[in-house]
């Protein structure tokens, strides 16, 4: 009898409450009933199982693949990732589905390029409680903006002072470089306030009217601002 129960356990791996060989009594009863059902109407049962598996897995995986970021076509340069083809008419079907679900209007190739970062240069995730320096150069562009967004709704207790810098607003060093300080507390220089006290952050660098959009091969970490974590906590 135990061997039969084991084969049953192997045969039906999708049944949820399966805790080793010692099943809870209601689950064992359910399994036995399912087994009896399968033996009686085995062919119909298997067809229903295959259809259910196909529909369920197919829909869930499609939902997962088109939720959030674009799954393919990303160009990663240091911490920054760009999807140059996401807004083009030859975008892959996943990018088109992601855009359709979010209602996104991505920048066209002739308009500009969006680069986003969720980690610093060493690969650690960006956190609202930490201080970061975003410093260096940007690729050639007529204008650029660098914005920070936090996950979830903004904290109503914090006044939204600014959520980004444009290339015109920024204060530069003598050699043309710039340094933005992303921190929860006020900093000297180009201070970009963190949108919240805690949680993950995302940086977006949008280059407008840039030759880089046509060929992302010219991007290398030297031409993009470096993201360095300066410290966390108060």
């Amino acid at each position, binding site marked *: 009898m135990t061997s039969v129960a084991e*084969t049953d356990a*192997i*045969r039906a791996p999708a049944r949820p409450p399966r805790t080793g060989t010692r099943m809870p009594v209601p689950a064992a009863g359910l399994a036995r009933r399912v087994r009896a059902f399968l033996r009686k109407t*085995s062919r119909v049962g*298997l*067809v229903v*199982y*295959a*259809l*259910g*598996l*196909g*529909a*369920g*897995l*197919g*829909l869930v*995986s*499609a*939902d997962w*693949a*088109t939720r959030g970021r674009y799954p393919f076509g990303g160009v990663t340069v240091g911490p920054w990732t760009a999807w140059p083809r996401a*807004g*083009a*008419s*030859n*975008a892959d*079907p*996943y990018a*088109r*589905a992601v*855009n*359709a*679900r*979010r*209602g*996104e*209007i*991505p*920048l*066209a*190739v*002739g*308009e*500009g390029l969006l680069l986003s970062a969720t980690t610093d240069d060493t690969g650690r995730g960006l956190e609202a409680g930490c201080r970061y320096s975003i410093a260096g150069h940007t690729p050639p562009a*007529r*204008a650029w*903006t660098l*914005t920070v*967004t936090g996950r979830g709704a903004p904290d109503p207790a914090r006044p939204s002072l600014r*959520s*980004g810098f*444009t*290339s*015109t*607003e920024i204060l530069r060093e003598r050699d043309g470089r710039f340094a933005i300080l992303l921190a929860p507390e006020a900093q000297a220089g180009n201070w970009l306030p963190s949108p919240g006290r805690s949680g993950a952050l995302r940086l*977006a660098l*949008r280059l*407008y*009217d840039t030759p880089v959009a046509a060929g992302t091969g010219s991007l290398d970490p030297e031409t993009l601002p470096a993201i360095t974590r300066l410290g966390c906590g108060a």
Partner: protein
Amino acid sequence: MRLRFLYATLCGLVLAGLVHIVTVLAIPLLSEADALSRARGSETLDHPQRLYTLSTADEPAPAEAWLPTPDPAVALGVCAYDLDDGPMRVSARTGAQMLSLAAHGRRGAFYAVTDQAAVRGALDLVILTRTQYDEALANEDENEPSRDVRIVAPERQGFVTVRVIAALPSQRAAANEAVQAVSCTIDSPSEEPGK
């Protein structure tokens, strides 16, 4: 019995792959939240529908924005077109601020132009079908060549986005106005007098 179960699982996985592919391809066609469906509301207007208005002192936060990740320094408007009504003409006057126009179809953006392509401060983008394009070429006066940028659209329906960058917070109101100042009209040469 176990073999049949494996066989059924295999069939289920193949089916899952098919369902996955069909679903991903069907999402842009069936979606009601995509940019094209939402831009439809602007079809009767002769100026861009505001999608993202920059916050200024007079207008605090844009309530009507549905764009998931807008650039806080770029005002965005959209004009939907249906080429069955006639060619779509988008006219923009260039100003101090950077302006870009992009034509989107259901598959994505097929053309984009910035104000650097403007001739004498005017940028005229005409979106037409292949037939309308041939007609426009045939009707053109050779002594007076048109300065329009003519684009043949891959599909009959789509939308044009207008982006104006406010480099400084003080330019935000002007950027919002610049988006509204762009005109999106249906070009019907037969209605013009003297032709």
